[in-house]
C-alpha cells in the first residue's frame, strides 16, 4: 500500500512537540498536517495527534484550558465517530481533562521535571496503537514532564479488567509515581489513546532508540486502513 494517510497534529498555544510529531509521522509514511487550535473543523484525515508541550502555559491544571479550544469540539466529534486520536504527554493531559480518557495527571511524586529514557512494557499488542509491538515487549522511549503521575480512583480495577491499560513503566522504572505504573491508557472503545512517553522522540536509533516508531507506525497503519476503507 502506498497511500500516505493524513494525520492532523493540533497546534495549541504552547505546544512544542508538534513539529517533531509531524517529522516522525512523515518519516513513518503518513502525510502530517498541522492544524491550529482555533480551527473549528479538522481536515479529512485518518488520525489526530495532540502533541506534547505546555498548552496555555499549563495554567490552572495541565490541559485544563486547551480542552476549550475550538478544534477540540471537532476532535471530540472525530473520536465519537470512531476516529483515531493519540495524545502524547500534554496531549494525554488534555484528553484526560476533556473526559475522553480516564484518570488525571498530577505533579510527579518527586516534584521534579523528569527528562530521560524510560523502559515501558506493552501490556497489549492488539490495540490500534500497538499493533507493531509484541505482547510484553519492552520499549525504550523518553519522558519529559513535570506532571505525569497518572491517577484514577476506584475505576482502576475496571480499567485493568477492560484491558485499557496499554503501557506500563517497567518494574523499577516508574519516573513519576503513577498509579499501577501506568504510562498509557486507551478509552473503552479503543480508538483514543494517551501516553506520557514521547514516541516521536524515539523513531531513529541514531537518536538513542527507534522504539517509539513502533507506536507511531501502528497509528499510521490504522489510519491508512481507515482512509482506504472510508472509515474516518
Amino acid at each position, binding site marked *: 500500500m502506498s497511500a500516505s494517510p493524513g494525520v492532523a497534529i493540533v497546534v495549541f498555544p504552547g505546544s512544542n512537540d508538534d513539529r517533531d510529531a509531524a517529522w516522525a509521522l512523515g518519516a513513518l509514511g503518513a502525510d502530517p498536517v498541522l492544524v491550529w487550535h482555533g480551527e473549528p473543523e479538522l481536515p479529512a484525515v485518518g488520525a489526530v495527534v495532540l502533541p506534547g508541550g505546555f498548552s496555555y502555559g499549563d495554567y*490552572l491544571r495541565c490541559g485544563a484550558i486547551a480542552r476549550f479550544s475550538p478544534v477540540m469540539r471537532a476532535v471530540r466529534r472525530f473520536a465519537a465517530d470512531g476516529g483515531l486520536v493519540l495524545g502524547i504527554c500534554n496531549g494525554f493531559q488534555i484528553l484526560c481533562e476533556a473526559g475522553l480518557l480516564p484518570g488525571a495527571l*498530577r505533579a510527579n511524586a*518527586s516534584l521534579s521535571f523528569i527528562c530521560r529514557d524510560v523502559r515501558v512494557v506493552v501490556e497489549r499488542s492488539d490495540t490500534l496503537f500497538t499493533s507493531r509491538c509484541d505482547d510484553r515487549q519492552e520499549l525504550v522511549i523518553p519522558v519529559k514532564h513535570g506532571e505525569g503521575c497518572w491517577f*484514577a480512583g476506584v475505576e482502576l480495577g475496571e480499567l485493568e479488567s477492560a484491558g485499557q491499560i496499554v503501557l506500563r513503566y517497567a518494574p523499577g522504572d516508574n519516573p513519576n509515581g503513577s498509579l499501577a505504573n501506568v504510562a498509557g491508557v486507551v478509552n473503552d472503545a479503543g480508538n483514543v489513546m494517551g501516553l506520557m512517553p514521547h514516541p516521536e522522540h524515539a523513531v531513529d536509533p541514531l537518536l538513542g532508540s527507534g522504539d517509539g516508531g513502533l507506536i507511531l507506525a501502528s497509528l499510521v497503519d490504522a489510519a491508512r486502513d481507515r482512509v482506504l476503507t472510508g472509515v474516518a
Partner: protein
Amino acid sequence: MRATVLVRPKRGILDPQGEAVERSLRQLGFEVNGARVGRVIDLELGAIEPEQAQAEVERMCGQLLANPLIESYEIALEETPA
C-alpha cells in the same frame, strides 16, 4: 457578590507539594504534622443572589475550576463592599 473558591487535593491523595512544604517547615524548626497545598480562586460575580451565586460557582467548579477526580473544593460567598 464575591466568591472565594478553595481547591484542595482530595483527602488520601498524595500531595508531594504539601510534603515538601511540611519538610521545609520542620527544617525551620516549626512543629507541623502535615501540610496540604491547594489553590485559591477569587471571583467577582456582579449583582446576583447568594443562592444563584452558589449554584453558579458549583457549576464552575464542576466544569473547570476543580478536577473532581483529584480535588475537592469549598465555596465562600460575601457581598461586594459598596
